[in-house]
């Protein structure tokens, strides 16, 4: 599992930069970054090194932050591998709330980050399907 940070941001210029600036000044490394927006506000989701520490840091700077455990799955760099994983989860009746991808090591396939209400079931399905799972310590 991966500990992801979710930050509440207003939908306006500069609200994301405020966060990345704070994190980079404090020397945290951002591995992945994705936003989900509504007309008024957005949720910024981040995978960073030292998530617990980074959360404390952002909270002390006045941001509203949550740590969310999400599943990290490393895909094979082959045509159809994303479809393969999603199909397995769908067949197992697992609903995905959100999903995004990032690459951590050059030359390697992307890591998919996904959140679901049925984590246990999803992990079982992914293991059965022989999908490589990624944890915090491997980032």
């Amino acid at each position: 599992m991966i500990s992801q940070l979710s930050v509440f941001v207003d939908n306006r210029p500069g609200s994301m930069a405020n966060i990345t600036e704070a994190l980079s000044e404090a020397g945290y490394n951002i591995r992945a970054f994705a936003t989900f927006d509504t007309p008024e506000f957005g949720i910024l989701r981040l995978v960073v090194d030292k998530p617990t520490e980074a959360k404390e840091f952002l909270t002390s700077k006045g941001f509203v932050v949550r740590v969310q455990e999400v599943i990290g799955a490393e895909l094979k760099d082959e045509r159809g591998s994303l479809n393969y994983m999603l199909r397995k989860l769908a067949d197992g009746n697992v609903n995905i709330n959100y999903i995004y991808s990032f690459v951590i090591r050059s030359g390697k396939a992307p890591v998919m980050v996904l959140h679901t209400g049925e984590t246990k079931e999803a992990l079982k399905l992914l293991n059965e399907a022989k999908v490589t799972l990624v944890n915090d310590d491997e980032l």
Partner: protein
Amino acid sequence: MTAIPKEQWKERIRDPKIECASRDEMTALQSERLVETVKRVYENVEFYRKKMDDLGVLPGDIKGIEDIGKLPFTTKEDLRDHYPFKLLAVPNERIARVQGTSGTTGKLTVVPYTQRDVDIWGECVARALTMAGLTKEDRIHICYGYGLFTGGMGLDLGVQALGAMAIPMSSGNTKRQMTCMEDFEATAFACTPSYALHLAESMVEEGVVDRLKIRAGIHGAEPWTQEMRKKIESILHINCFDIYGLCEISGPGVAMDCIHQKGLHVYEDYFYPEVLNPVTHEACADGETGELVFTTLMKEALPLLRYRTKDLTDITHGTCDCGRTLPRISKFRGRTDDMKVIRGVNVFPTQVETALLAMGTVAPHYLLIVERENNLDVLTVMVEVDEHYFSDEIRKLDELKTKVGNVLKAALGVSVRVKLVEPKTIERSEGKAKRVIDKRDLS
């Protein structure tokens, strides 16, 4: 420092003869002072002489405090109409100082004081500081504004009367406030509750909280909730007290709450409180909400008869757990002039606060915006999101918005647009917190 629990609190009372007087003793004192005040205003202030003549009331008709209902009212408009010194009851040369309102809601109101008025004001604030457990050993950091506004001066006079050390910071410059508070080893601080919260949050950011010697906060000059009090107390590990006053009557120190937080004790030997039905002007029973009205019993320069504060509250007589017999007024339910009429419905900002707190949503910071779109009033409530109810899922945040909207609609009787915003995006004022912005052009 650590907050002192009620059970371990050692109550200090500055003037037990007054503050714990029996009802009969107090009534006798008030009666004597009212008779004297009425005689003085009738003789010296044309405005009151005319008003009493119009009502057919002569000074001789006022035999005691029970006759107060026969006297005419005074309003803020009366003070403005007689700006600056036309209600003065003493010769000009006896004025020792003037104070006034900030004048944000209209024309400036100016209040003259004789030296005795100033001394009594300081004495009242000293009683209040004592109620907060402070003694001459204490160092009181005052970040109320100094100037015409009574906050800074009032606290300063109280600290002098108490014999404690005053740190006259005035408002603004949060960074310097923190430095001085730490370096001068302040043991208490006084400012508006919204500024106290801002200061407390800044202290957490700067990491200075553990180095402070503060144990009490004295806050007033604007309405605040129990939730705000708890928040300031828990961030700074102190006890907070609610001080009330208005410049027309003297300034801060007209009333103050004790550790038991069962209402604010009114210094009724100087300021006689009535709570009246705003429509019929009949006296309300204890516990019944009405408009707070004050008669000054010792003021020399500007004695006021039945001054209508426009603050809505209720009053309770009887002995408090702290031992005082001074009557207690409840936290204000609103001000008649803060009220907004939205689509024909009366809305008070405090109703929003109460409703938000009732749903367990800890949100001391909110802002109401009233606009007019296509000739229809639209009320938007901006609420700061905090960690307690922030969710990682948009769906849940949308649900929260709907829930807040429904709760507010039920409480106010008008529909409300809810806008969730980042923490600290709603401006923290260094004076009175602004809770409503009315953008309607009604001219």
